[in-house]
């Protein structure tokens, strides 16, 4: 859905101010990093600014766009690698760790979670993130074109797969 040329969204700032916290939270759950999440939020709102999404549908559209965009970044691996290197180099100033050991543990845990998320089927990953970002079953169903009844199944499968992934990797690490 694209804004017809010349039709500037007059509600861009209003929607940004209303929905930025949720968009940031959705992206942060995927990426595990506030800085990277902010980058994704900026991309999402730029796309929204160019779109003709009705204002009433904006919250759902933005949440789904944030999840997809963040997962795309996650799967590209580039941001994750850059961020982890920055943390390893002690450059991640916004996310200071009290000591090196804690920083390493946190980094490993985050990496495992991100890797597990990246391996989930896309619909499961999005449903999982949206649900844990506070969207209702009806909202998730509408956003992903699912029946409300199947949202629970999708989220349940995602959580089960995530737990197994984390358990397996914790065991093998």
């Amino acid at each position, binding site marked *: 859905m694209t804004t017809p040329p010349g039709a500037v969204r007059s509600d861009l700032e209003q929607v940004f101010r209303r929905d930025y*916290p949720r968009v940031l939270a959705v992206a942060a759950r995927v990426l595990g990093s506030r800085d990277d999440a902010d980058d994704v939020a900026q991309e999402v709102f730029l796309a929204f600014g160019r779109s003709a999404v009705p204002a009433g549908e904006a919250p759902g559209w933005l949440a789904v766009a944030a999840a997809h965009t963040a997962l795309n970044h996650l799967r590209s691996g580039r941001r994750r690698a850059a961020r982890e290197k920055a943390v390893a180099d002690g450059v991640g100033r916004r996310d200071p760790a009290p000591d090196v050991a804690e920083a390493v543990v946190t980094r490993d845990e985050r990496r495992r979670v991100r890797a597990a998320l990246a391996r989930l089927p896309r619909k499961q990953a999005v449903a999982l993130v949206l649900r844990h970002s506070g969207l209702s079953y009806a909202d998730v169903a509408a956003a992903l074109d699912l029946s409300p009844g199947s949202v629970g199944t999708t989220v349940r499968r995602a959580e089960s797969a995530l737990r197994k992934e984390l358990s397996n990797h914790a065991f093998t690490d």
Partner: protein
Amino acid sequence: MRSPTDRHPTDGTLRRLLDEPAGVADVDRDHVAGCPVCLRGLAAAREDAVTAATALSCETTPDVDLAWRRFSAATVASATGSAAARTPAPTRRRLFTLRSPVVAVLGLVVVLGGASAAAAGDWFQIFRTEQVVPVQVSVNDLVALPDLSNYGDLQVTSEPHVHAVADAAAAEQATGLRPPGVDRLPRGVTGEPSYTVGGQVTAEFTFSAEKAARAAATAGHSLPTPPPGLDGSRFRLVAGPGAAEIWSEGRSIPALAVVRLAAPTAYSSGAPFATARDYLLSLPGLPAHLADQLRGFTGAGTTLPLPVPAELATSSTADVNGHQATVLASRDRTVHGVVWVENGVVTGVAGLLGEDEVLAVARHVG
């Protein structure tokens, strides 16, 4: 009287029972309450949900005002392509993700070429920057600008490869531009500067009537019929090299930065350029008041438009050693900059300084 069914609810129903019990049918709730199998399933679902919630937790305390300012600034920085040297890393990264406005504004530079002569045959210069003039825009204007790649093929044929160098001599060797010497630093600016250089950027745009028609149809509009000869016309945009001398003092916005850049030029391979300009200005994606401003200085093909977002900055003019300069000021008056063109070189001075201070530096750079 309702009685629990023997059918076990699905895992999805058990999962919803944790979050939205009111959304689960009474018959299923009653069944679960009395079914050891389902209660075990419910406990497992709860455990996995808690694990997922913990794994996905990430503390975010949003600062919406700051985020909106960043969004505005990143959009503007992308559109002007000028702030890379003085913005923090996250914003620099966004320059790559918000490249469409850059493309659009480069396209406007072509529009502003405005040379009345029609090109024929080989590339020839249709635009050279002799002065910089501010164009009032809003952040919404920049977001709404059409992406030039919707109307043809855009190829960046030479990237700038911006990188730091050791000193002024290395900067001159890399770019052929002598970094400006600053005789006397403003009060509060101390220490030695760092040097950053970038090579020449060249891009070629080939107009495609078919692509333009497709983009218009997708957006539910019909474009004006392209004038004869425009389809397949090529335009070459050239800017740089450039060198920056920066006194950062550890801040994301430098205390002082002086930038020199070989002025942008544009060339055409054969389009009747005035016709192309008029056509591009008639595209429905260009905000009308912006198009009106651009039409105002399409005469000699020597004026580079500098988009100035009204929400963030104001502009005025001043004299720098006989050259008309554009002075920019952030709305909170903490950051000032001045930019002017001299002998085919664009020079900019900016920083956390007052207007008098940037003008004093500008008038004495060597």
